[in-house]
């Protein structure tokens, strides 16, 4: 057992921390009150720093790294509340493209590594509590083509994406793991309509409507009806990245709250001297550390392929939701009115952590996944 970062991982962490020091995004969050184009300069910087190459094989021009390195990078980005769509394009998008055919990879991975391709995973649907197997949107099979009809909701990075990975049902009914298929769809394909929107955490997404969208067989990832296993593996890597980022954000919420309590004086002393607040900040600290432990558990078990890796991922997302809620709420309460303002960073971190719980199944959904598998 060893929880130390390797030399390579430490370098990645250091470079990410340097980037965050120079580019902390709270100011951008505060300014962005409308739909904004992709911050192309930052994305190019990501490409130049080699970050877009992290999870790709060396034969594809990647760095051949995995979820541990992604964790190190994302935790630092979470500390800076960096909004770049890394998880959507590199972790989820890249994850699917690694499972794609050689022809699909040749068409997409070089552009992605250069920073010229944005990807989004279109999975969630309105009025359907998110789990992969709860997918209802149908792809009808006609000859060698699949025809997509329906709507995907809250597609993160869906507004900027060039390429969509769409999870749809080619057989069976909601609840079945079998019968799901994955399709690569160009956003400019006839019948694809996007309704872009902001999200609570200062980022952007889109509702994406599919009206008789024809997809060739060559654009499918994995076997027909056999998309579940791939989607689950990629989603879990996405959840690991999302959680790593959030652990970075939670640590900032905790630190800022503790620091504020040392300087804010009421009744003639720093409010951090009041035992009632000390106990609550101690609980925030414990919740934070427990989340970090589950992040390590889930990431290491996934990397090493343990049997209970999926269970650990569910436990981590559940913990993230619950601890995140608690830490975010206490951070605001202890900051008082200032915590409610757009001006202070705290609120922006709170909004990100709150948004993350809502994405890809909240704490209850993931606890239920554990309960049902037991």
């Amino acid at each position, binding site marked *: 057992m060893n929880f130390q970062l390797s030399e390579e991982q430490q370098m990645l962490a250091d470079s990410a921390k340097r980037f965050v020091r120079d580019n902390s995004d709270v100011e951008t969050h505060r300014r962005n009150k409308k739909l904004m184009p992709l911050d192309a300069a930052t994305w190019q910087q990501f490409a130049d720093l080699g970050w877009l190459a992290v999870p790709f094989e060396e034969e594809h021009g990647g760095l051949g790294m995995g979820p541990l390195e992604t964790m190190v990078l994302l935790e630092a980005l979470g500390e800076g509340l960096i909004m770049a769509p890394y998880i959507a394009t590199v972790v989820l998008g890249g994850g699917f493209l690694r499972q794609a055919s050689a022809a699909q990879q040749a068409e997409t991975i070089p552009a992605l590594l250069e920073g010229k391709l944005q990807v989004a995973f279109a999975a969630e649907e309105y009025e359907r509590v998110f789990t992969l197997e709860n997918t209802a949107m149908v792809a009808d099979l006609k000859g060698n083509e699949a025809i997509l009809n329906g709507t995907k909701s809250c597609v993160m990075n869906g507004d900027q994406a060039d390429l969509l990975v769409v999870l749809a049902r080619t057989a069976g009914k909601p609840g079945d793991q079998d019968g799901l298929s994955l399709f690569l769809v160009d956003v400019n394909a006839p019948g694809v309509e996007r309704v872009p929107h902001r999200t609570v955490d200062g980022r952007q997404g889109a509702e994406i409507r599919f009206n008789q969208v024809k997809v060739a067989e060559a654009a499918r990832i994995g076997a027909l009806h056999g998309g579940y296993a791939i989607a689950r593996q990629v989603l879990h890597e996405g959840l690991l990245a999302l959680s790593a980022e959030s652990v970075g954000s939670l640590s900032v919420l905790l630190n800022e709250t503790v620091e504020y309590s040392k300087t804010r004086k009421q009744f003639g002393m720093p409010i951090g001297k009041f035992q009632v607040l000390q106990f609550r900040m101690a609980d925030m600290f414990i919740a934070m550390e427990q989340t970090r432990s589950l992040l390590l558990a889930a990431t290491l078990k996934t990397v090493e392929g343990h049997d209970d890796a999926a269970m650990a991922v569910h436990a981590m997302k559940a913990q993230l939701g619950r601890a995140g809620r608690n830490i975010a709420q206490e951070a605001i*309460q202890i900051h008082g009115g200032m915590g409610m303002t757009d001006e202070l960073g705290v609120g922006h971190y709170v909004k990100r952590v709150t948004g993350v719980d809502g994405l890809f199944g909240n704490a209850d959904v993931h606890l239920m996944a554990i309960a049902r598998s037991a």
Partner: protein
Amino acid sequence: MDLRVPEQEKAFRDEVRTFLEESLTPEIREAGRLVTSVFAPVKEAMAWQRILNDKGWAAPHWPKEFGGTGWSVSQRAIFAEELVRAETPPLVPMGLHMCGPCLIGCGTEEQQQEYLPKILNGEHFWCQGYSEPGSGSDLASLKTFADKDGDDYILNGTKIWTTYAHYANKMFALVRTNRDGKPQQGITFLLLDMDLPGITIEPIVGLDEVPEQCQVFFDNVRVPQKNRVGAENDGWTVAKYLLTFERGGQEYAPGLNVMLEKIRLMAEKQQTAFGPLNKDPVWKHKFAALEADVLALEFTEMRIKSALSAGKDPGALSSMTKILGTELLQKVTELRIETLGSQSVIWQPQALVPGEEQPVIGPEYALTAMPHYLNSRACSIYGGSNEVQRGIIAKAVLGL
């Protein structure tokens, strides 16, 4: 002891319902549906207040001689329930629920005659100048100074978290008139015009991106001494009297019941892989816990109302309902975003502005969930933080 509802109260409820049905305009109803705060959109809330005032129903809690309705406590409760059930926008409380009762209790006859009618008809829009950047929970440490000069006071300092100061034409404020002695003993309660020379108002944008709060700066602002309520240096007594209204005057249970019912309907529409969410055991358990809490609060509030109608002072009990009401509101808004999942992550504040006719992305019922969740985090901070309220209970009720 019983819960029987007298016949005349049933008839009264019908009368209120009929009035609401007939007098609520589509614009006011829309504003009511779009509420994500205890403070409703101003234009529609004020339009609604004028309609109520024409009927004589703007301030049922005021004594009849000042423009109240003369209703019994239970009639007032019925009225409040029906307003909530019809999803009317809540009236702006600073005049009707704070300054008004305060002037009735502590103002001179001249002040009552000058201000109360204009509170009722909305001509005066009040804001509350209490908190300061350095004085929140420790309100008595406030440092906005009022120095005497002839017949006036000259104000210097700043107030913060002044809700809707940018809409207000009047402010009631606590200012320091004596720098010596116990902090509580040097405070004076003043009424002032917001257009006086030397006043600057800076709106503060909140987490929901709405500038609901403001900071107000005073630079040598001249206020006539006759605008004082109560004696000089005795403003703390006036403020405490008012805070009891701010904390205890509100009833939370009726609104919470309406919200819970709507959440139940939302859960019915959400499909899990095993059926609708409202049949999911985890969701049901959470919902049931809140239903039980709200039922308890409903009866706690009724006990307080019953004590009030027997002429008793609710005193520290108002701290209890403030804690319970605000924290349950927070939990209910939390259950709502959890029920909606990623649908609550979609952020479209422009669709919350009445009359904008901005198309809603995603289910319309999800629109208010996240802004309301975020906004309601303020409820345990304002009006005396819930830490302060627990302190009051510990001290005043438990004698600790």
